[in-house]
C-alpha cells in the first residue's frame, strides 16, 4: 500500500507559510507568527494548515505531504493533464513549457522545461505539492526540491493499470480521492469495453515507431507496450531495453502487419504518412507499407495520462476495424460466446494477450 502511515503533526513546512502579497521584510517576518496566543480557533487553523502525512512515492522515497493541498506544480505534461482531468485545474499553480493540453495549461505560469526546471520558479509559486515523473524529470531536480523542504511526489507507471492506480493515488494526495476513483473507474470501463470487443481477435503484430532515423522502437517494459496489448496489438521487437534502436533489416525480416506512428498533427493523415514511407527506399519494401497498413495515433500514447485511453481506442479502431463495425446484436452474441473469457477478465485484466 502506498500510504504507509498518515501522521498528523505540526511540522514547520516552508511551503505552508504564505506571507501577505507584496509585504516588506518586517511584515513578512511578523506574518510568520500569526496565530497569536490565546486565540484557540486560530491556532487550530494553523495546526491544520501545517498538518502533514507521510507517504511513500512510486520511486520508494518517503515524502511528507501537507494534508491540505492548495497549490500544485506539475513537472510533466501527463501530470498536468491528469490534474485537469481530476477537475483540479484551478489549484494548478504552475506547469512546464511542454504542457500544452488542455489549452488552459498553456496559460499557467511555467517553471521551465521538464528536464531542467528552475527551482526558484517552483519555490516562487508556493507549492504545497510538486508532481514529478520518472519518465521525463531528472532525479537531481527531485532531490534538490526535497533538499529545500518541498514535497515532491514522483510517479512511475509502467503499465496502463499502473497509470490508473497512479492517478488514484495522486488524486488522493490532492484531496480528491472521489474524483480520482471515479476517473480511474470510468477509464477502466472504457478499457473493459475494448477488451470485450477485441477478445477473440488475434493480436496484430506491429512496429511501434518512436523515432524514425535512427529507428527506435519500444521494449516490453514500457507502458506503450502495455497500451498496445490493450489495443489488441503486440510489438514485433523483443528486447530487454526500453527504447531499443533496431536496424531496418531486422524489420524487413520480421515483416510487421502494421506500422504504428505517432503524430501531434491531426491533419497528418495515415495517407500522407504512407506516401512519405513509400518514398523511402528502405521502408517501401515492407509489406505493411505496400498494403498501406500504417496506423497513426495521437502523441497521447506516449504520455501516461487519461488521454492515453483515447489513443488506445484510436489505435484499436485502426488495427481492428472489423471489431467495431458489427452491430450491437452481433456483438452481444459474440460476447455471450466469449462470456467465459469476459468473466475471467474481471480477475486478470493485466494482460489481454495472455488471457486469450
Amino acid at each position: 500500500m502506498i500510504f504507509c502511515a498518515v501522521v498528523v503533526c505540526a511540522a514547520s513546512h516552508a511551503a505552508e507559510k504564505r506571507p501577505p502579497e507584496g509585504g516588506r521584510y518586517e511584515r513578512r517576518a511578523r506574518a510568520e507568527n500569526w496565530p497569536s496566543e490565546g486565540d484557540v480557533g486560530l491556532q487550530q487553523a494553523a495546526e491544520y494548515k501545517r498538518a502533514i502525512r507521510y507517504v511513500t512515492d512510486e520511486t520508494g522515497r518517503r515524502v511528507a505531504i501537507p494534508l491540505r493541498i492548495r497549490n500544485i506544480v506539475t513537472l510533466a505534461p501527463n501530470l498536468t493533464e491528469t490534474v485537469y482531468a481530476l477537475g483540479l485545474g484551478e489549484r494548478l499553480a504552475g506547469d512546464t513549457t511542454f504542457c500544452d493540453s488542455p489549452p488552459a495549461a498553456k496559460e499557467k505560469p511555467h517553471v521551465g522545461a521538464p528536464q531542467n526546471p528552475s527551482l526558484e520558479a517552483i519555490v516562487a509559486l508556493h507549492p504545497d505539492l510538486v508532481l514529478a515523473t520518472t519518465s521525463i524529470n531528472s532525479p537531481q531536480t527531485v532531490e534538490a526540491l526535497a533538499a529545500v523542504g518541498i514535497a515532491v511526489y514522483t510517479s512511475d507507471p509502467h503499465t496502463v493499470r499502473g497509470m490508473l492506480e497512479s492517478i488514484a493515488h495522486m488524486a488522493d494526495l490532492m484531496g480528491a480521492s472521489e474524483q480520482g476513483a471515479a476517473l480511474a473507474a470510468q477509464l477502466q470501463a472504457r478499457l473493459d469495453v475494448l477488451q470485450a470487443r477485441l477478445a477473440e481477435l488475434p493480436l496484430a503484430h506491429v512496429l511501434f515507431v518512436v523515432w524514425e532515423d535512427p529507428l527506435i522502437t519500444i521494449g516490453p517494459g514500457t507502458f506503450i507496450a502495455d497500451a498496445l496489448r490493450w489495443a489488441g496489438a503486440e510489438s514485433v521487437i523483443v528486447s530487454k531495453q526500453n527504447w531499443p534502436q533496431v536496424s531496418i533489416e531486422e524489420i524487413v525480416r520480421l515483416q510487421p502487419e502494421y506500422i504504428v506512428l505517432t503524430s501531434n498533427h491531426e491533419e497528418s493523415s495515415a495517407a500522407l504518412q504512407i506516401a512519405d514511407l513509400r518514398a523511402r527506399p528502405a521502408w517501401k519494401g515492407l509489406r505493411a507499407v505496400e498494403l498501406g497498413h500504417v496506423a497513426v495515433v495521437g502523441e497521447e500514447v506516449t504520455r501516461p495520462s487519461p488521454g492515453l485511453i483515447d489513443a488506445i481506442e484510436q489505435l484499436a479502431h485502426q488495427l481492428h476495424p472489423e471489431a467495431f463495425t458489427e452491430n450491437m446484436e452481433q456483438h452481444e452474441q459474440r460476447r455471450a460466446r466469449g462470456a467465459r473469457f469476459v468473466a475471467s477478465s474481471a480477475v486478470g485484466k493485466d494482460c489481454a494477450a495472455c488471457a486469450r
Partner: protein
Amino acid sequence: MRPLTPKRILWICSGLGAVLFVAVVVSLRMGAYPIGVRDIVMTLFNGAMGRRDDIPSEFWLVVFGLRLPRIALGILVGASLSTAGAGFQALLRNPLADPYVLGVSSGAALGAIVSLIVAPHVVGAIQIAAFVGAAATIAAVYFLGRRGGHLDSPTLLLAGIVAASFLSAIIMFLLTMVTGSELRSIAFWLMGDLTAPPPTTNVIGWFGFLFFIFIVAAGAIYTTSSDLNLILTGEQEARHLGVNVNRVKLVVYVAASVLTGLAVSVSGAIGYVGLLVPHVMRMLFGTDYRLLIPTSAIGGAIAIVVADTLARTIVAPTQLPVGAMTALAGAPVFIYLMRRRIR
C-alpha cells in the same frame, strides 16, 4: 614588465577578488524568485547572526537553500578546474592541456554511471563513486605514463588521452544499456551542472570539507610555482638550476588530478573553464606561475559564477547546463583577447 613582488600579487588578487564579489552579489540578486536587494541583505545579515527565526521561510529557502549553495559550488568548481588546468598546462608543457585531457573526468563519469546503475537511490553514492573513478584513473594513468621510473610529459599525455578515449568508449557502451531516468542523470554528468544538492543536510560542513581539499591541493601546486617557471624554460635547465623536476611533476600531477576529481564529483564535467581561464590570465597578467595560479583560481570562480547566473536567467524559467554556458560565453571572450594580443 614590472618585477613580480608579493605586493603586486596581492593587489591583482584583491582586484580579482573584488570582481568575484560583484559577480556573487549580482548572482544572488538574479533569479526566478522575486526578492529585492534589501531583503537579500536583511536575510544574509540575520542568517549570519544565527537568527533564523527572524527570516521569512521562503527568503531563507531561496537565499540559503538555493542561491548560496549554488554560488559556493560554482566558486569551488571554477577555482578547482582553473587551477588544475594551469597545473596540467605546465606539467604537460602543452597549451591545449585541460583538466580532462588525462581522462580524470571520464573516469569520474564512469564511476558515477556505474553507481547510478548499481545503486540508483543511495544518497552520496554518486559523489563517492565519481571520486573513486577519478582516483583509479589518476593511478592508472600515472603508472602508464612513467618512463624510466619518472613521469615523462609526452608519455603521460599519450597515456592520458588513450585512457580518456577508452573510458569514453565504455561510457558510450553503458549508455546503450540504460534507459529512462538513469539516462537523464548521466546526461547531467556528461554536460556539467550545479543543480545537484549536497548529499548531507550539514551543508556548511560539506562545503568546509570540499574547500579544505581545495586549499590543500591548490596550495600544493602553488608551492611549486617558482619551480614550474623554471621547468617551463626547459627541464634540463631546471635540473641544472637545482630543481627536483620529478618531485615537482609528481606533486603537480597528483594535486591537479585531485582538484579535477573533486570538481567532477560534485558537478559533472564542466568544460572549457579549465582550458580558457589560465590562458586568459596569461594574456592579462603574464606567464609567471606565482601569479598565474592564484589569478586562475579566482578567475575560474568568476567564470563559473557568471556562467551559471547566465545559465539560470538567459532562457528563464528553464535552466541551461552551466557546461553549455561556459563554452558559449567563454569562446568569444577568449578569441577577443587572443586577437587583441596579436594586433
